[in-house]
């Protein structure tokens, strides 16, 4: 009896094992229309309007929500498909037109568009979403303001499917700003069901849930682990995506991420050190795509408010002493676009011939130091965010070395990631290495954040110059293309003369994917758009 019982147990165990191995083929079948994306970190919220939403939230918003408009596409010289900020295309809005006086824009929404729960999308949802963006404060409100969208009264429901925005002023960024991740359209009926008197915008609920109608639904989200998307088969705002399911797994270790893509277990990997991308590109069995981030700049910032860098001649001396080429090579292994002008290479107004600092010129630098009253130099510190030490440290060391040649004795000051923002806010660091990028690819948009005298946190050099402010403000609202070009040229010239920031290079947005993946598109928000991807 006893031996028979054992036999049965062993047999059933074998049967179970077999059945699980039999189930394997169905898993591998899943893989053909499922994408595994591996990243370093993941979203900390499902709601881009929430406090502290990190940049991975842009990706969630991009894939799970629709906006009224989106951008067209173009092919870059290196063959990469990129979004095209000069072309606006319909997403939820089928068509739109400016009023005769140019002071409002009217949108006609798709009549067949539905949210993920089947509710039809109406103009009321659009108004609720925009009202929310300009009311909740913080980042979404500031982003809306960048396109002169400031108060709920500007947003008018004209009919079930007609919506109008009244302009406060003519601003060329109003329409382009509707295609960024912030003005997404929420399912207002669903969101309101989860609103409370103290939380009228359902901030608490939308932090953990999506209420959208985008091409993908968030099937599950485990913060710090993975986000799983499944295609919305009823999506009407564009061609139906090819990939049915996307799993975004967070793997914090760069070594593990690289092993995963090389072994073929991951389909797409982001966030690797520059050297890994160089090596993987050389091996040739994976697709490595690098795109210079638009309107972005890695720079050396000098504190224009505190001595000794408050003296423009000291700043110019540093600019002449900079071993630009060596710094860029050491930090990015060639995966970047070197910059000599304070404008990114694919931004309007870029003209490398404008810069006097293209080559290291030590005699000129020394002369300027003597003129400034520091013939023997001085002591200072070079600060950078230790969170990005892989890029920042070699740059700091080379900068330190070259400064010694003109008598400046700098110590390197690594500041931990958490403390970095706070340290920048105090604005008392003499010399920093930092990066900034603007979503909308306009030079005056970048200058508004980095060099305008309104002194936002991103003006890390405390640069104040009424002449500069006037030029930036004028360019923002200029409609005459010729005058606009002159204004841009003018503020670049001022920036080159005063050198509060010294451009180094435009960082590269790098991804590596299996050869079987195609359809990758570069977007300004630097997140993966699953909608265009194809897996063979």
């Amino acid at each position, binding site marked *: 009896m006893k031996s028979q019982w054992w036999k049965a147990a062993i047999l059933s*165990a074998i049967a*179970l*094992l077999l*059945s*699980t191995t039999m*189930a394997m083929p169905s*898993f591998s079948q*899943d*893989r053909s229309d*499922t994408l*595994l994306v*591996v990243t370093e*970190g993941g979203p*900390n*919220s499902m709601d881009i309007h*929430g*406090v*502290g939403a990190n940049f991975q939230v842009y990706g969630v918003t991009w894939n799970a929500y629709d906006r009224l408009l989106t951008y067209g596409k173009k092919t870059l010289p290196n063959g990469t498909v990129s979004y095209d900020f000069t072309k606006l295309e319909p997403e939820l809005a089928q068509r739109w037109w400016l009023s005769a006086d140019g002071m409002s824009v009217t949108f006609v929404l798709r009549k067949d568009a539905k949210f993920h729960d089947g509710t039809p999308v109406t103009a009321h949802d659009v108004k609720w979403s925009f009202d929310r963006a300009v009311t909740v*404060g*913080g*980042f979404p409100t*500031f982003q809306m303001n960048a396109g002169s969208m400031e108060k709920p009264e500007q947003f008018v429901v004209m009919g079930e499917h007609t919506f109008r925005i009244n302009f406060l002023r003519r601003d060329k960024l109003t329409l382009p700003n509707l295609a960024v991740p912030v003005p997404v359209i929420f399912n207002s009926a669903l969101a309101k069901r989860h609103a409370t008197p103290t939380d009228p915008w359902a901030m608490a609920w939308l*932090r*953990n849930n999506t209420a959208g109608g985008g091409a993908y639904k968030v099937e599950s989200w*485990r*913060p*710090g*682990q*993975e986000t799983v998307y499944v295609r919305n088969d009823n999506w009407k705002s564009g061609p139906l995506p090819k990939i049915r399911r996307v*799993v975004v*797994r*967070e*793997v*914090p*270790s760069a*070594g*593990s991420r690289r*092993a*995963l893509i*090389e*072994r073929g*277990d*991951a389909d797409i990997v982001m966030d690797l050190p520059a050297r890994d991308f160089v090596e993987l590109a050389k091996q040739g069995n994976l697709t490595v795509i690098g795109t210079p981030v638009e309107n972005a700049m890695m720079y050396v910032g000098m504190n224009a408010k505190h001595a000794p860098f408050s003296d423009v001649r000291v700043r110019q001396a540093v600019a002449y002493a900079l071993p630009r080429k060596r710094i860029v090579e050491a930090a990015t292994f060639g995966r970047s676009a070197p910059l000599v002008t304070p404008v990114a290479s694919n931004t309007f107004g870029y003209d490398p011939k404008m810069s006097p600092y293209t080559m290291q010129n030590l005699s000129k630098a020394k002369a300027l130091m003597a003129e400034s009253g520091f013939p023997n130099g001085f002591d200072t510190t070079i600060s950078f965010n230790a*969170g990005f030490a892989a890029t920042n440290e070699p740059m700091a060391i080379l900068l330190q070395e070259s400064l010694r040649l003109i008598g400046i004795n700098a110590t390197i000051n690594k500041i*931990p*990631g*958490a*403390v970095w*923002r*706070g340290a*920048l*806010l105090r604005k008392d660091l003499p010399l920093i290495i930092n990066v*900034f990028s603007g979503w909308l690819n306009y030079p005056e948009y970048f200058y508004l*954040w980095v060099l305008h005298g*309104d*002194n*936002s*946190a*991103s003006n890390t050099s405390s640069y104040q110059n009424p002449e500069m402010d006037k030029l930036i403000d004028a360019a923002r609202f200029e409609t005459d293309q010729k005058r606009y070009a002159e204004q841009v040229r003018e503020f670049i010239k001022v920036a080159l003369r005063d050198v509060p920031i010294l451009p180094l290079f435009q960082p590269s947005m790098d991804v590596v994917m299996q050869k079987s993946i195609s359809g990758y598109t570069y977007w300004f928000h630097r997140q993966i758009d699953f909608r265009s991807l194809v897996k063979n």
Partner: protein
Amino acid sequence: MVARRLATALPGVVGVIVVTFLLNRALPGDPAAYFAGPAATPQAIEEIRGRLGLDRSLPEQFVLYLRDLTRGDLGHSLTTGQPVAADLRARLPASLELATCGLLLALTLALPLGVLAATRPGSGVDHVTRLLATMGNSLPVFFTGLVLVYVLYYLLGWAPPPLGRLEVFRQAPAAVTGSFLIDSLLARDPGLFLAAAKQLILPTMTLGLAALAPITRMTRAAMLGVLASDYVRTARANGLAPRTVLYVYALRNAMLPVVTTLGLVLSFLLGVSVVVEKIYAWPGIGAYALDSVIASDYAPVQGFVLTMAVVYVLLNLLIDLLYGVIDPRVQIES
């Protein structure tokens, strides 16, 4: 005895609450600036500071923290956007499962090795044991972790990908204990059990190697001491079988210091698991706490330290109880 031991542990926990609160505030870093984003204006940062309650005085913040604590509310993590208590509840089992597996692996290797080394001092076994212990002690876990991934996964392809607790196409078992091994068995899903066990192989090896050294050393030293003692000599002289002497008389008495080490080793493992969790994308509390520290996200750090303190207190209690089982004299004395 249990109640009295718990009562003596309470002041320690209270101390931990106060000290973590103060230490967190003493750390440099401005969470409001961090969460306002790179393009924030000063008023945006002030707004967030108000929302986080950071504009209140320190005592006020502490009282609010205590009030929330009594309700079981550990605050909200800004890095994951979730309540800290929920985060810890989801992640603590992952860490405990991993640390326990690491400890078990270390034990199954270290105890026999330690005994063998002690019974044959100076022999080949002794040298191998010393080598293993030295390696476990001197190789940092981030190094062994990466080497294991490189060799066993990347080069040989024997181990599953370092993608966390389960491969991508598996669903986690219904949560009962939080341990995937136990929960998959409860769900009668041997396939899932195997899948979860496979994911545990590499991180368990990494942790096991790190834990090997102290346990082997302690076992060897304790055994040597016991084997040289009078009662073992007497037992031998009385003609008891060598096996009986070794296992009944010597090993049992050598276990006391070893059990003491186990408590230390398990808390050490929970500590080093920070690194291991990062390498294997293991969703445990170590990686969670590290991310929170980097983001100067106070609530999760406080919650983590508090949880660890409670785990530590419970662990010590368990070990005290184990003493009683191994050596009944301990119970009588207390």
